[in-house]
C-alpha cells in the first residue's frame, strides 16, 4: 500500500508541476492552496467550481453581446471580459487571465473578429483547465483512498 501511495504522490507532484510549467496555473493558485486545511479540505475545489460556473455565465453574456445584428456594444462585452479577468486572476487561472487581457484590448479597439476569436479561445481554455483540474483532484482522491496524504507541491 505504501508503494502505491508513493507512486500516486509522485504522479500527483509531476502533474501539478506540469500544470504550472504549461502556464495553466500561476502562484495565486498556490495562495488558494494555503487556505485549505483539514477543516476546509475542499476549499480549492469549491472556489474553482464557482469560477467555472462564472465562466459559463460570463461567456454566455459575451456571446450574446457579440451576437447583436447591427451594432455590437463592445463596452458590454468588455464589462464581462473585465469580470472574467478578475475572477480568473483570483483563482490563478493564468491562461484564461492572459486571454482576457487580449480580449479586453480587442473590445477597446472595437475589433469584432478579434473578439469572436478570443471568445472561442476563452471557451476552449476554461474547459481545458476544468479537465486538467478534475484529473488533479481525482489524483488527490486516489491518494487519500490509498491511505496517504496529499503532498504539498513546491513549485519552485
Amino acid at each position, binding site marked *: 500500500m505504501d508503494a502505491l501511495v508513493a507512486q500516486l504522490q509522485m504522479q500527483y507532484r509531476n502533474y501539478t508541476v506540469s500544470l504550472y510549467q504549461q502556464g495553466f496555473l500561476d502562484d495565486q493558485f498556490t495562495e488558494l492552496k494555503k487556505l485549505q486545511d483539514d477543516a476546509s479540505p475542499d476549499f480549492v475545489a469549491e472556489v474553482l467550481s464557482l469560477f467555472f460556473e462564472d465562466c459559463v455565465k460570463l461567456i454566455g453574456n459575451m456571446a450574446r453581446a457579440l451576437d447583436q445584428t447591427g451594432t455590437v456594444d463592445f463596452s458590454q462585452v468588455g464589462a464581462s471580459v473585465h469580470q472574467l479577468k*478578475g*475572477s480568473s486572476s483570483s483563482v490563478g487561472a493564468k491562461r484564461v487571465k492572459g486571454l482576457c487581457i487580449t480580449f479586453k484590448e480587442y473590445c477597446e479597439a472595437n475589433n469584432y473578429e478579434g473578439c469572436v476569436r478570443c471568445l472561442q479561445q476563452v471557451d476552449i481554455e476554461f474547459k481545458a483547465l476544468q479537465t486538467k483540474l478534475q484529473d488533479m483532484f481525482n489524483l488527490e482522491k486516489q491518494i487519500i483512498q490509498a491511505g496517504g496524504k496529499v503532498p504539498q507541491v513546491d513549485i519552485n
Partner: protein
Amino acid sequence: MAVGEVMRMDIPAGGDLSVTSPELHVLAVDDSIVDRKVIERLLRISACKVTTVESGAMALQYLGLDGDKGASGLKDLKVNLIVTDYSMPGLTGYDLLKKIKESSVFREIPVVIMSSENILPRIEQCLREGAEDFLLKPVKLADVKRIKELIMRNEAEDCKTLSHSNKRKLAEDIDDTASSSSSSSSSSSLEDSSVKDFRSSKRMKSELSSPL
C-alpha cells in the same frame, strides 16, 4: 464605536483564556462571487468574523445607512473593518467609502479598498477620501495579515493614547491638588473632561490626515 470596545475579549463559557486576540468583525463587499468566497476564507483563516455582501447598496443596508430607518440597532453590529472592491455596478467602492466617512456613526470604521487595477490617481483619490489602505487584487494571505495587524495596532494605539493622556492629566491634577487644597470631586470631573478631549482630538486627527 467606543475606543476600548474592540479590545474586549469574548471569553468562552469554560473560562479558557487561551484565546489571546479579540476577533475583528469584517464586512467584505464584492460583486464577484469568486472573490467573495476567497476574501471570506482569507479573513476567516486570519481569525476574523466575516459578513460578505455583493454590493455597496447592500453594505449600506447592512450598516443601517440606507436611509430607510437610519442607523438603528447599530450597536449590535460592531463592524471593525470594511473591505470593499472598487469597481462594482451601482455604488462603486469609492462611493461606499464616501458614504461611510460622511456618517457620524460609522466614519471611524477603517475602510480598505481592493482593485485589480493599479491606477495611481484612483489610489490617491481613495486615500484622500479616508481609506485606510488599498489592496491590489488578487488578494493574498500576506495582504490580509498586514491589514489586520494595521487595524489592531491602530486600535491598540488609541487605547494606549487614551490611558496615557488620562494618566498625564491625572498626574497634573494630583500636582495641582497637592499645591492647592481642592476637593476630590473636582479631580474626578477633570478625568471626565480628559476623555472628552481625547475623543475630539482623535476626530481632528483623522480629519487632518484625510486631505493629502
